[in-house]
């Protein structure tokens, strides 16, 4: 019903609210408003984050003098590139048939990251915060502590992520509910709707990562929210056709992920664009590893992809999205707080530094969207982005 309605002209805020409030048409089959919450763990002890740092004079330094002042005498070597990364808009406002309060633009570069002396860098890198349709299993205890109860309510989590500084939400659909029952399209659509209503931020929706479940869940979402210009994922060489087809029909973008290899990335972009999806609706995810766990491959592949794009290779001229949050929080360094070497230091600060260094260094190697997990990492990455864009 909602899907049919959406196809007639998109879902605007009013329609959604009407549906939600029970006015007019009954919406999708009733799903619980929020997944059943498991009993909450006892109040966690506060994390001794910066306790190790001795108080010191914190003097904000004066702004730097311009390194390349007007009338510079030294003949500076400038890199002029012929290519340009495609500029892509994520999310659609009401005028464009969506309901987003903010449309986020990425890409459009004609120079390597932050090399303003070489070319144009019109759009700042974007922070996406990862949320899910229910409390995730197997996350680090530090993440459960940082987000608290909102993990049991996708809409509340979306609001908290926006408040933490997200430009975009990255929503992961679960394979099963908290009781182990398979996720259903109805539940997934309801969760996405709740998240879309909670904030005006553009939304990325990714499936559980199993081809069949991904397709079963993403197609109804794509249809239900036609015109919202979501990014749907994840397209991989083994499973991309269904997602691309539904994104194409409903005005969404796709995420194309390949395993840290320039040629594989190009190949998948070619396959997807051969289906008829314009290149300016593909975000490429070249995959990264966390610091210490293959980080350098992701870092160099991104530098190479961006260089290829600037040299004029059309199939690499796409903005890049990577997932430092997921990768960093998979590591033992971030997950485990006890029984680790003393040289690893404070658990919380180590984990946040792990995620922050992974994200900021990937931004410097060409990431247009970084997907993060911890609110403090979001804050620190935001400070870094503001600094890097502050010409």
């Amino acid at each position, binding site marked *: 019903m909602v899907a049919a309605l959406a196809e007639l002209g998109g879902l605007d805020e009013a329609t959604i609210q009407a549906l939600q409030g029970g006015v007019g048409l009954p919406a999708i089959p009733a799903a619980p408003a929020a997944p059943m919450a498991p009993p909450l763990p006892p109040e966690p002890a506060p994390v001794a984050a910066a306790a190790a740092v001795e108080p010191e004079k914190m003097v904000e330094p004066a702004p730097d003098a311009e390194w*390349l002042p007007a009338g510079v005498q030294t003949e500076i*070597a400038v890199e002029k590139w012929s290519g340009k990364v495609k500029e892509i808009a994520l999310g659609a406002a009401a005028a464009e048939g969506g309901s987003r309060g903010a449309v986020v633009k990425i890409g459009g570069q004609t120079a390597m990251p932050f090399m303003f002396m070489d070319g144009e860098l019109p759009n700042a890198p974007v922070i996406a915060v990862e949320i899910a349709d229910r409390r995730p299993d197997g996350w680090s205890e530090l993440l459960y502590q940082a987000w608290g109860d909102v993990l049991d309510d996708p809409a509340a989590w979306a609001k908290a992520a926006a408040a933490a500084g997200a430009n975009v939400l990255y929503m992961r659909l679960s394979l099963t509910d908290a009781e182990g029952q398979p996720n259903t399209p109805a539940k997934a659509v309801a969760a996405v709707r709740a998240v879309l209503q909670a904030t005006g931020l553009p939304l990325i929706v990714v499936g559980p990562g199993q081809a069949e479940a991904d397709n079963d869940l993403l197609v109804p979402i794509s249809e239900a929210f036609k015109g919202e210009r979501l990014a749907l994922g994840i397209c991989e060489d083994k499973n991309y056709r269904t997602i691309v087809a539904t994104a194409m029909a409903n005005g969404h973008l796709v995420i194309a992920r390949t395993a840290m290899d320039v040629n594989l990335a190009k190949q998948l972009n070619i396959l997807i664009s051969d289906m008829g999806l314009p290149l300016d609706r593909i975000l490429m995810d070249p995959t990264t590893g966390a610091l210490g766990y293959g980080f*350098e491959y992701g870092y160099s592949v991104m530098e*190479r992809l961006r260089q290829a794009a600037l040299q004029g290779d059309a199939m690499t001229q796409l903005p890049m999205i990577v997932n430092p949050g997921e990768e960093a929080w*998979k590591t033992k360094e971030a997950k485990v707080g006890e029984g680790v070497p003393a*040289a690893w230091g404070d658990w919380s600060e*180590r984990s946040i530094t792990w995620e922050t*260094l992974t994200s900021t260094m990937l931004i410097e190697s060409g990431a247009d969207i970084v997907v993060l997990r911890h609110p403090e990492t979001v804050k*620190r990455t935001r400070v870094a982005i503001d600094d*890097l864009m502050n010409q």
Partner: protein
Amino acid sequence: MALSGIQIYKLLPQTNCKDCGYPTCLAFAMKLAAKQAELALCPHVSEESASKLSAAAQPPVRPMALRSNGFEVKAGAETVLFRHEKTFVNRPGLFVRVRDSDSADAIQAKVRAADAYTVDYVGMDLTLDGIAVQADGGDFAAAVQAVRAVSQRPLLLFAGAEALKAGLSLLAAGEIPLLGVADAENWQEMAALAKQAGAPLAVAGASVDALVDLAQKVKEAGVADIVLAPAQRSLLGVLKANTIIRRMALKKNFRPLGYPILSFPGDWGDPAREAVLAGQAIAKYSGFIVLDHFAPEVAYPLLVLRENIYTDPQKPIQVTPGIYEINNPGPDDPVLVTTNFSITYFSVANEVEGSGNKAWMLVADAEGMSVLTAWAAGKFDAERIAKDVKRFGVADKVGRKRIVLPGHVAVLSGELEEELPDWEVRVGPREAVDLPKFMKQVLV
């Protein structure tokens, strides 16, 4: 920037006299370009040409080293801007800064912790490199003495010329610290001191022109080893300055900027920002990095980042072959085989560790290649696996002899049964991510 054979040929006498031992000047030029001959073999080359050729033969970023008591921190000698082109050469030195305005006790507490810090990363012991002593209105020499009482690592000494002299007098013969930071006001006395001490000198400049000017003056004053300290503190400022310096050195062979770079991420005062600035300095061309805060939880990720960035892009980090314990396995737990490519190792180890399953992990010597690549290259076969089973005494660890092959090399199972007759050979999943399920459901 290296000259081509033709460019070198134009600088030679072009007489084909054969005195160098090669049939023609062009043949000799080609040998020179390939660095297979020395210019000294030509007795007729003009002085002008010789100086041009030797200038061109110099590395574009001047190599240098700080030394003390058996420690050495090298910098310079870099040849590329992007690590995928060629390996970055000298890992930037990480130095923890103390100020002479602090008490000797405070200085020593900080230095002792930084000096002793060591952390294991894939079998390597990573450490910080030294200590920076900053004049800040206190007794500089006393501060240097306090540092030397607890650390023998190389030093960066930042003070005026008089204080530096006093500090230098406390160092052992043969030590080479970095001195600094010279500016437009004090460069003459600083250069004289650096020259006398035979130590590298850091020079600061608020703009590229100011830095170029000062580097040239200091060089003319007789200082050979110069370190560049662009006076930039923001992420963008440092990124821009460092990139321009390295780019000018490599692409334009511009000598005044052909030196290592010194960075002060701690100047922000905020430890969280300092970590990101230090990370950027590691990834983007700094040679010496001065940290104001020392904390293990920040030092560890920075040291790992440094290893990652400075790894040979053609030759991935390898894990030392051997038998690894996951979740304290016992004699009944299985032996999982994989290769010593670090990413392969981490994928398998992380999945099994995260799942809580116990296992012995046999990391076979596959010359650092992943499972399929190593198998295709003949570096991961039944014979090699069996050899490593014996070499690492795996049979002594387990009572129940079960060995699990990666699914991608299921084809090896028959041969491995022949090589290891008293073992039960099982074929595991192709992907590490499926291991926990396999262990729970199949390996019971």
